[in-house]
């Protein structure tokens, strides 16, 4: 071996070593315990026109979930933002995989400024909040509305919007679209057959009997996502027993799922299973397949939120005229009237705690929550927003119109629960599985509630999951 060989080999070895050194620093954990940062990044001066103190030329990065609502509505909001701050550039992107796209950026401390954390790739909020990964949005609530004079942003929101985005009393998540959850039916089908939507459970069962006799199945549901059926069951229980039913479930109180109200509700709903009022084969259908069966008139009722109309747009026959209605009352002893319906804000938006332009993110939300921004959203995607009164003067499709009416009639009796936001796994996995067994007729009401309670106890007993309280 001569000197030249040695030199050459050393050179080769260093070639190998250099990239390896680079590799070792690229650790998924991000290396080191670093909770600094979160200083809010760019800051400008607060003025009457600019109450949050946006730095006018700070760039803003917005990541949108490219789902049912698409991304065009967001581009319109971004245009409104740049109209006010012409020096700011906006980097817009849309994806269906929010979690996989953004997870490394959160760890690197380089997240975007606004994230529409939605869809099947939604990041679990429990973890985001417990890791201080997202910013407190309270400042936004107290800022004046962009175009509704004399009101703060908080004053312009529909009831429940702040609550559903709050974790331990801190407002962390802006849920932008307003959704009503109820039982849907075709007004045309009901008119043609002379059926009337029943207000009490006994009438509901009587009508189911009539519907079945006419050759149509009374019910179908998303068999592969049976949690859709947990919504009417819990709604019925809350209307029977009052808001405490929901609070107990949300706060993971012992035996919350086995309260008298939940028992009464599960017993009632068991009737549609026992009497064969569910379209045969339903457990094998996913949400789209079951909704399509319903649109074809093979089933009369389905449980869903108010996105149903736009989700089914392509397959709904003309003149189908879908309507939403509250769950029937169990009896005259119900604590809430028949009109009470579950209304809540969905479609979550958040500002990461380490965003470079956190205040720009808040200002972007203020733009979304302006009357102009909200009305533009409703026009573009046929959905309600979290802004009160923003549907005025807009021609709504038939189904959405019934949603507005149902929410109006429900008024202050409207209710909601949040355990699905606090503990995503509890609804999506555990209650989901229990509903599947129950509505396929494999478990009794008592076994169903047992299985739900076991799921809740599992979450409650898991010290690695942060617990939140609501009031």
């Amino acid at each position, binding site marked *: 071996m001569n000197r030249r060989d040695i030199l050459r080999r050393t050179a080769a070895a260093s070639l190998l070593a250099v990239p390896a050194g680079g590799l070792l620093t690229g650790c998924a954990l991000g290396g080191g*315990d670093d909770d600094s940062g979160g200083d809010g990044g760019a800051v400008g001066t607060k003025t009457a026109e600019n109450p949050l103190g946006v730095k006018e030329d700070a760039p803003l990065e917005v990541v949108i979930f490219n789902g049912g609502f698409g991304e065009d509505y967001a581009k319109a909001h971004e245009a409104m933002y740049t109209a006010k701050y012409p020096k700011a550039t906006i980097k817009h992107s849309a994806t269906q995989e929010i979690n996989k796209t953004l997870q490394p950026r959160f760890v690197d401390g380089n997240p975007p400024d606004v994230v529409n954390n939605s869809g099947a*790739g939604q990041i679990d909020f429990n973890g985001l909040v417990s*890791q*201080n990964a997202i910013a407190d949005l309270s400042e936004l609530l107290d800022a004046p509305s962009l175009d509704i004079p004399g009101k703060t942003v908080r004053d312009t929101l529909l009831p429940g919007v702040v609550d559903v985005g709050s974790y331990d009393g801190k407002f962390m998540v802006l849920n932008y679209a307003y959704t009503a959850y109820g039982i849907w039916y075709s007004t045309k089908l009901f008119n043609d057959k002379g059926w009337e939507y029943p207000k009490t459970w006994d009438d509901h069962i009587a009508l189911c009997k009539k519907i079945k006799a006419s050759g149509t199945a009374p019910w179908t549901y998303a068999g592969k996502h049976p949690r859709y059926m947990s919504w009417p069951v819990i709604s019925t229980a809350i209307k029977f027993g009052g808001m405490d039913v929901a609070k107990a479930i949300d706060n993971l109180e012992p035996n919350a799922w086995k309260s008298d109200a939940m028992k009464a509700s599960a017993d009632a709903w068991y009737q549609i299973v026992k009497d064969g009022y569910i379209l045969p084969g339903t457990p*094998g259908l996913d949400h789209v397949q079951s909704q399509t069966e319903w649109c074809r008139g*093979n089933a009369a009722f389905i449980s869903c939120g108010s996105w149903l109309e736009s989700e089914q747009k392509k397959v709904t026959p003309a003149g189908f005229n879908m309507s939403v209605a509250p769950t029937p009352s169990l009896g005259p002893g119900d604590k809430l009237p028949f009109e009470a319906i579950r209304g809540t804000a969905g479609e979550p938006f958040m500002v990461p705690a380490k965003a470079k332009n956190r205040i720009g993110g808040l200002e972007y939300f203020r733009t979304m929550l302006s009357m102009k921004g909200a009305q533009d959203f409703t026009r573009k995607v046929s959905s309600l927003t979290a802004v009160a009164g923003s549907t005025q003067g807009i021609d709504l499709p038939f189904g959405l119109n019934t949603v507005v009416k149902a929410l109006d009639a429900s008024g202050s009796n409207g209710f909601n629960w949040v355990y699905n936001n606090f503990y*995503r796994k509890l609804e999506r996995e555990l209650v989901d*599985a229990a509903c599947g067994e129950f509505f*396929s007729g494999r478990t009794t009401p008592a076994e169903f509630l047992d299985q739900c309670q076991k799921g809740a106890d599992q979450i409650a007993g898991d010290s690695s999951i942060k617990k939140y309280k609501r009031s």
Partner: protein
Amino acid sequence: MKHGKYPLIITFLLPPLLLYGMFVIWPYLQAFPISTTNWLGYSRSYDFVGLANFETLLRDSALWKAVRNNAILLLLLPILTIGLGLFFASMLNMGGRRGAAGVVGVRGSAAYRLVYFFPQVLSVVIIALLWKEVYHPNNGLLNGTLRGLGLPAPTWLGDPRTAFWAVLAVMVWSNVGFYVVLFGAAMAAIPRDIYEAVMLDGASRWTTLTKVTIPLLWDTVQVAWIYLAIAALDGFILIQQMTDGGPNHSSDVIGLRMYNTAFVSESKFGYASAIGVVMFFLTLSVAVLALRVTRRDRIEYS
């Protein structure tokens, strides 16, 4: 040319090795330290929890259901796929009995070969969508046929008794084509005169397959076994698309548990990594076992 050997080798080996190291080995290695933390995936803070994740794993009943399903897959997927693959390949290559002179496939074997390979060119997601519609309880091809024949029409993917098996059938269906081609190519390499001798001795198709073809194909079968065993420990995409592990976790697999734990219902990256580490050792031991058990003397044609 001894002089220029090392630079040449390094130039060709370095880039692929670097890429492999960076995108395969390095993430694997990282899963080990992460599995001993309670990392939640969206910040840099985490605590070391030792083997606590592995303890939780032992008591995780949903995970054990998944392990059981993977074990069934491990047993059945290779047997069914290799069995069918060998059967079809031998029919296509030497099933014909036309004339005594040549060893040929059954009539129309070229067309069959194309049809068998068809699932292989479809992406797994497309296969899942296709079969979801085939299994549609009311409008599906399968239940339509069953009803036409006056047979009961089960809710294939919506019943815990059938969901897992329905997906297993799709796994076999989608894999078999590749192995028909693989075994076919290996059969083509077997000298024809062996078959001619066997046929002169009056051996049946079955004897030919079990006494001549399979022993001569053993190397290829062994490779197929390992591939399929590894595929059986995965099964993630089909299950996720077709049943999402349901109903009531009855069709869950380990890969889906891991994915849901990290990305869907929770963001427990530490615990998910622990599941990944267990999967790593399972896969490794299965591969080693498969190699050991199937080891036989290599036959070389002279």
